[in-house]
């Protein structure tokens, strides 16, 4: 089985992740307030794919409509949505992007529920469990984020939602090796085999579908 790191957002981080993983997806962060220049974006994706092979766009927005627009453009990249806004979380799942990263991101709750979990399962949208937000948090924040991730794992497992564990590294120092990423999965309640599938089986399925 391959180890795949699904979300690396920095060049140096990519170089380190490449040493530890069989495949690495490079993520371009895409903050959106309005429609982007699609020609420019396509060109940029072409360049990134030349350099990194597999590329994802991480849509960061408060406007659900922009996610649909982007998704319909057939940009030949994985489409991730940065979780955190409940409306955006739901919309990302409804229109069926490739993954919703950290639905609990920056929230005071877990940002996810049984209704959303059912939609995610039906539309085959993966939930990404990211380690990087934990690395930046203080002890109080870390305990809370872990609590939310535990709840989200419970929902993901119960409703058989596709899932992966990722560093979501924005610098080299946030990259973690596959076996160490797995320990996050176990910490939030996964069996070891489930944690392994979250850095192998599920990522492979998602990447194969796109490439």
């Amino acid at each position: 089985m391959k180890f795949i790191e699904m979300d690396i957002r920095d060049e140096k981080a990519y170089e380190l992740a490449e040493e530890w993983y069989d495949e690495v997806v490079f993520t371009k962060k895409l903050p959106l307030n309005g429609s982007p220049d699609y020609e420019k974006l396509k060109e940029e994706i072409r360049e990134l794919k030349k350099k990194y092979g597999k590329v994802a766009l991480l849509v960061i927005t408060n406007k659900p409509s922009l996610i649909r627009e982007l998704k319909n453009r057939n940009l030949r990249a994985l489409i991730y949505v940065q979780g955190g806004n409940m409306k955006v979380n739901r919309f990302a799942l409804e229109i069926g992007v490739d993954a919703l990263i950290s639905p609990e991101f920056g929230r005071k709750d877990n940002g996810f529920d049984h209704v959303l979990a059912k939609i995610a399962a039906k539309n085959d949208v993966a939930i990404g469990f990211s380690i990087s937000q934990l690395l930046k948090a203080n002890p109080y924040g870390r305990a809370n984020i872990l609590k939310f991730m535990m709840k989200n794992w419970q929902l993901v497992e119960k409703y058989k939602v596709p899932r992966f564990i990722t560093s979501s590294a924005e610098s080299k120092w946030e990259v973690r090796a596959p076996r160490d990423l797995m320990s996050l999965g176990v910490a939030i309640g996964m069996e070891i085999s489930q944690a392994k599938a979250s850095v192998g089986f599920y990522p492979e399925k998602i990447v194969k579908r796109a490439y």
Partner: protein
Amino acid sequence: MKERPKTLPPTLRDKHRYIAFQVIGERNFKKDEIKKAIWDAALRVLGELGTSRAKPWFIKFNERTQTGILRCDRKHVEEVRFALAMLTEINGSKAIIRTLGVSGTIKRLRLKFLKEFGW
């Protein structure tokens, strides 16, 4: 109003317990001091991971009687009690947190353990 996750079906809901406690201190404490002390005690004794599992949550504190209620995960009541037993001071003043009792509902907790404190 900001959207929030829906209330989960019963099997997926967290199973809580409510703990009544009394603070014996060098001086009287404010609600916010107690809240912080409980979190600090949990983080020190149970760590970030243990705290995320035990889910301690401050519910309320009566400053006049120095008694209060906190909530935690049903399976981790003993660990939370231990974290409180390890506490030796609150905001620089000596203190003991004594647990008075545990119940599945706030109503029963008040009735059984806090009535004598005028709740």
